């Protein structure tokens, strides 16, 4: 212990620490600082009593207020669910068309449907419901199975060509490679392409029309406008699920792809499926 030393200039005693002749004054802490410090000590004691604080072997003290951040989240979630209840009850009770007729209910269902869509549907239909070859674009106004809210709802509930659902929408385009020769396939492809645009060899169109009438019109209709009961697409418009142009058409004639969509009714439940239908119907192409 060094000797007590008083600084000559300030008259304050020093701590006894010295570095190259520089000494540290032993001034007291400012009182406001001390009182603040004592106040924080008292606060800390109160805090550890009131809130979870002391770690134990397997858990921690719970505190007399029994607070936990998890519990707080739970409460907030419960409050949010409670706020949604009246909408959900209404959606349960109403048909899709009735939901759409009710402004605030429609807004709720659209927002909720969008959330469900992002989790369950974007994998195939894309984040903007814009689709991709083989997976239909839900924004446009071409609907294989019907574009009313009710029809969309039915499609979502039962799926398409989904074997586990007896009510699923189903149809199957046969593989015409076994029934038509390559020349006929080329002709009919040229004819179908000519319905919506120019073709490479106009001479093929007329024989193609005959092939079409014999083989395709049964499902796609004599005017090739399609048939929604069979999910047969309109072949005269600008929208092509499996690609446009003669080559893509020929490919689909030879060995057709028949896409599958799962049935969502059982998986997501009544309310969510209705919300999804409202959302998809709102995308702009709904009928």
């Amino acid at each position, binding site marked *: 212990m060094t000797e007590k030393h008083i600084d000559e200039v300030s008259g304050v005693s020093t701590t006894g620490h010295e570095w190259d002749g520089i000494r540290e004054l032993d001034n007291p802490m400012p*009182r406001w600082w001390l009182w603040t410090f004592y106040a924080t000590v008292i606060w800390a004691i109160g805090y550890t009593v009131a809130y979870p604080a002391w770690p134990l072997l397997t858990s921690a003290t719970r505190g007399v207020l029994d607070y936990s951040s998890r519990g707080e989240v739970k409460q907030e979630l419960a409050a949010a669910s409670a706020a949604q209840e009246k909408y959900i009850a209404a959606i349960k009770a109403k048909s899709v068309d009735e939901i759409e007729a009710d*402004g605030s209910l429609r807004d709720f269902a659209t927002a909720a449907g969008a959330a469900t869509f992002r989790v369950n549907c974007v994998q195939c239909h894309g984040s*903007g419901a814009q689709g991709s070859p083989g997976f239909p674009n839900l924004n*446009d*106004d071409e609907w294989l199975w019907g574009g009313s809210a009710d029809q969309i709802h039915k499609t979502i509930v039962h799926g398409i060509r989904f074997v586990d659902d007896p009510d699923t929408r189903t149809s199957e385009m046969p593989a015409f490679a076994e029934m038509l020769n390559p020349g006929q396939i080329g002709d009919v492809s040229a004819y179908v392409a000519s319905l919506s645009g120019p073709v490479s060899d106009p001479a093929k169109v007329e024989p193609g029309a005959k092939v079409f009438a014999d083989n395709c019109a049964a499902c796609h209709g004599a005017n090739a406008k399609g048939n929604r009961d069979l999910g047969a697409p309109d072949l005269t*418009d600008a*929208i092509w699920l499996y690609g446009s142009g003669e080559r893509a058409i020929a490919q689909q004639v030879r060995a057709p792809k028949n896409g599958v969509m799962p049935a969502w009714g059982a998986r997501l439940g009544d309310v969510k499926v209705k919300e999804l239908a409202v959302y998809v119907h709102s995308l702009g*192409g709904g009928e």
Partner: protein
Amino acid sequence: MLDVGEVERLEAEAVNSARVRQPLYAARKKIFPKRASGQFRRFKWIVMAITLGIYYLTPWLRWDRGPYAPDQAVLVDLANRRFYFFFIEIWPQEFFFVAGLLVMAGIGLFLITSTVGRAWCGYTCPQTVWVDLFLVVERAIEGDRNARIKLDGAPWSVSKMVKRAAKHTVWLLIAIATGGAWIFYFADAPTLLGEVLTGQAAAIAYMTIAVLTATTYVFGGLMREQVCTYMCPWPRIQAAMLDENSLTVTYNDWRGEPRSRHAKKAAVAGESVGDCVDCNACVAVCPMGIDIRDGQQLECITCALCIDACDSVMDKIGKERGLIAYATLNDYNANMALATGNGAHAIEPALVRQPGGRLADKVAQFHLGKIFRPRTFVYTAVWALIGLAMLYALLTRERLQLNVLHDRNPQFVVLADGAIRNGYTVKLLNMIPEPRTIRITLEGLQGGAMNAVGIEPMEGETLAVEVEPDRLKSLKIFVRQPRDLMRPGSTPFRFVAKDVAGTETASYDANFIAPEASR
């Protein structure tokens, strides 16, 4: 007329004077300001009445805005994010008006400070005004300076306890009223008052009252001058704005020194005597506990009460007023040079006097012309420029606005007939408190047609939209263009919104996006 020797000498020592300057962490020495009277004191009473009146009464002013908006003249409606100021309504995105006001206030402060020094501190700062108010209470209950010093030193007795309790109770009531008045700026005042009194107001209202009650009571009653000296950055900042032509409260030692309590005796002895009779009246009235005769110092808020105190003494002994006065550094220096022969000798009061005892003509006096100098002109010009720009912006601002956001995904949709459709989120801002019907049209998109979700389908190029008063309406609008009119890539066009009943229009430049190469 009193003789110099008859002027009462007050036992007053400047708490914060250079002679007894204390270390920063030392306990505060109490200050007991004596009541002053005079022109500046009267002016301060008037300023106090006006500032307190504005603060307490403003929320109760009514202003009719029709059935769709609150009728409170000044209201910061945080819940609905609107700010009402008489005929002006401000939305959050127009907050730059408030920022502009703050800039104007800042430059106004530069202007005021460069001309009349720390007038803000001395007259209008809430700290000064409320301390003044609290001192009125203290004086009414405990008496003036001497009585208060005596009471403070006296042992605790029933009468002391009663006085102290009464003082602190009144202080607390003022503090509660102060904190209470603040919340009325944020909600309908009469409704909120009822709710507060019946315990039905929001918790935040009571918390705000509690916090502001505490700060008012502690700052105005307990801490007083310490707030200015230790907590406030303003004195440091303001000092930087002063120059040699700014008015500050000045002890004119060129005519006051050498000070003497026994002027007659000294005069008889042939010593030169200044005007200061060392009565300490200036020290006794100072709310900051300083001795202005030590010169300009950081603590001085230029409240000018020492001028009043000194003037009344000068009146009594028949000397000219202005021993302590508002003076500029230039004038002071000129007069000092006169009194000291340009610093050649100590102050010789005779040099600044005429034989009759009046001040010499050569003594520099302040005149209004000194206010007009380049610095004040620049401040005034900048201040006015910002004010005019804001006024222009306010008078020409749009009360109907349109914002358009193009869908990102998908950017466009090919429809069955080959037409291209683009989706937009359109936000219509009806910024007046009346419902309006807005007609939206497309301009510059050949063959363009639109429809909106949730609005009666209306083919063609117009949509009629009902917008609620003072609200934003968000619409999902689909725009279509036929295949044969389509241009590949991005085509600029314009959404135009027009008030059906009025003349106001708003437009937004948007783009219509089509596939790059058409099929």
